[in-house]
């Protein structure tokens, strides 16, 4: 006897799983169960920089980014909960000619898609970010509508709305296997018992590829550790926009509570599951802070932590249904930008599951692109 039965089981209570569950319920699906091995928002979603931007370098990501900004701007009203949206923009910093050229190319593309981003002078950059010192920078781009939201509030808001629509959330429940019968999903096996269901959505974040392996699907995906830190609160206006550089390998931003958050990619991108914080990051990131924002020298770091980036071969998400197992859907490998896309990707995957088609195209995100050699090359990723 199964412990429970469901129409859809969502694996993972991160922002993607919660957004997907909410949109599925909103589309009329009954009997949805979200299974989370820890607590809701304990994975990457609760550890992220939570930046939101439309400054991308491919048409697909620009369209996603723009749609996400529109959703975030209306999310508080829709979900009846504050999601901490702050639109102080993203200020991109280039240190190399080739990099600045690329940023300018990106701006052209963005403008053609209705995103009013622009190149800004150093003086303007200093106005936008009063604490900034970037004498060695070659150029800057800026888009005012970019910004960030509170990752906890956003995830909890999706969860609370999903709950109101009848979705059941099981925390401290780990999926350990998936049973397939006649080429279709039959049962999700958890450490608490079995859940019979015809449909599974893999939204397991850093463990996305481990869940795929349960149906013998090997994806070109791995997880890597990214460190991040936060300072004590200081007076506002030091660094209101998200300050970001691809070649400088950093992102920094002051939150509305006055604290400054900043992180970077690990050099060499080691494959790691170890989320214990490391000291070399702290020293490196402190140097980045004091170089970019000299007046932060005397402020203190109060916390550092780490989370997983689930990376695919081309650093773009994987969305779609498994080719050999009916009812096994996936939404993951967000490669470091899965928070901002969640309001839109959650809706799109729900449409694919319920209707079999989507309002915005996502077929290019199916994992078959790797076998077909149709990788998506996005120049604007950190």
């Amino acid at each position, binding site marked *: 006897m199964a412990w429970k039965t469901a129409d859809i089981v969502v694996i993972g209570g991160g922002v993607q799983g919660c957004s997907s569950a909410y949109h599925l319920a909103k589309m009329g699906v009954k009997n949805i169960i979200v299974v989370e091995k820890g607590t809701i928002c304990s994975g990457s979603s609760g550890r992220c920089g939570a930046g939101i931007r439309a400054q991308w370098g491919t048409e697909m990501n620009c369209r996603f980014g723009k749609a996400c900004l529109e959703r975030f701007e209306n999310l508080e009203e829709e979900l009846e909960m504050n999601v901490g949206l702050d639109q102080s923009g993203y200020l991109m910093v280039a240190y190399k000619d080739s990099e600045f050229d690329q940023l300018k190319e990106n701006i052209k593309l963005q403008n053609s898609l209705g995103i009013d981003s622009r190149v800004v002078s150093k003086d303007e950059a200093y106005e936008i970010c009063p604490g900034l010192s970037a004498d060695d920078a070659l150029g800057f781009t800026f888009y005012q509508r970019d910004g960030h939201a509170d990752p906890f509030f956003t995830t909890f808001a999706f969860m609370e709305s999903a709950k109101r629509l009848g979705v059941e959330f099981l925390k401290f429940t780990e999926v350990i296997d998936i049973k397939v019968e006649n080429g279709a999903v039959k049962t999700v096996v958890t450490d608490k018992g079995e859940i019979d269901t015809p449909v599974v959505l893999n939204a397991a974040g850093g463990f996305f590829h481990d869940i795929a392996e349960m149906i013998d699907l090997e994806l070109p995906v791995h997880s890597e550790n990214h460190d991040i830190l936060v300072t004590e609160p200081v007076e506002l206006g030091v660094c209101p926009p998200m300050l970001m550089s691809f*070649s400088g390998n950093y992102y920094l931003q002051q939150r509305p509570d006055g604290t400054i958050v900043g992180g970077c990619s690990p050099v060499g991108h080691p494959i790691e599951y170890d989320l214990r*914080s490391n000291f070399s990051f702290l020293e490196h990131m402190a140097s980045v802070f004091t170089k970019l924002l000299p007046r932060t020298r005397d402020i203190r770091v109060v916390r550092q932590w780490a989370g997983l980036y689930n990376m695919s071969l081309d650093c773009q998400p994987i969305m779609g249904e498994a080719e050999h197992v009916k009812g096994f859907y996936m939404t993951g490998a967000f490669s470091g930008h899965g928070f901002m896309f969640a309001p839109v990707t959650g809706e799109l995957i729900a449409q694919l599951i319920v209707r079999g088609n989507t309002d915005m195209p996502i077929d290019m995100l199916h994992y078959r692109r790797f076998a077909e050699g149709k990788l998506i090359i996005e120049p604007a990723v950190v």
Partner: protein
Amino acid sequence: MAGICSEKRQYEEGDIVVCRCKEVTLKEIRKWISRGYDTFDELKRLTGVGMGPCQGRGCRDIVMKEIARMTGKTLEEIGTGTYRPPVKPVKLGMLTEANKEDPWKGKVVSH
């Protein structure tokens, strides 16, 4: 007199600030525990409790006891929640001096 007394009682039951750093009240903590956010980490993410400069030294125990009281679980069952470094806040300038490397060195044009 009665007025003062009842005011005092209300203050004790509701608006006691359990986390001075982040100004989180007992009332707020109780509201979220009753809605199912019954671990320290969840309450932390939702209210900011324990995320101030004292890193929860001033509030963790009170919150843990409140979870235990409301859920009927023991403190062992609830667990402690995650402790994060640096336990004592350190100045960025001090850390910078400890770093011998140029921050731009070894920079990667990443994925």
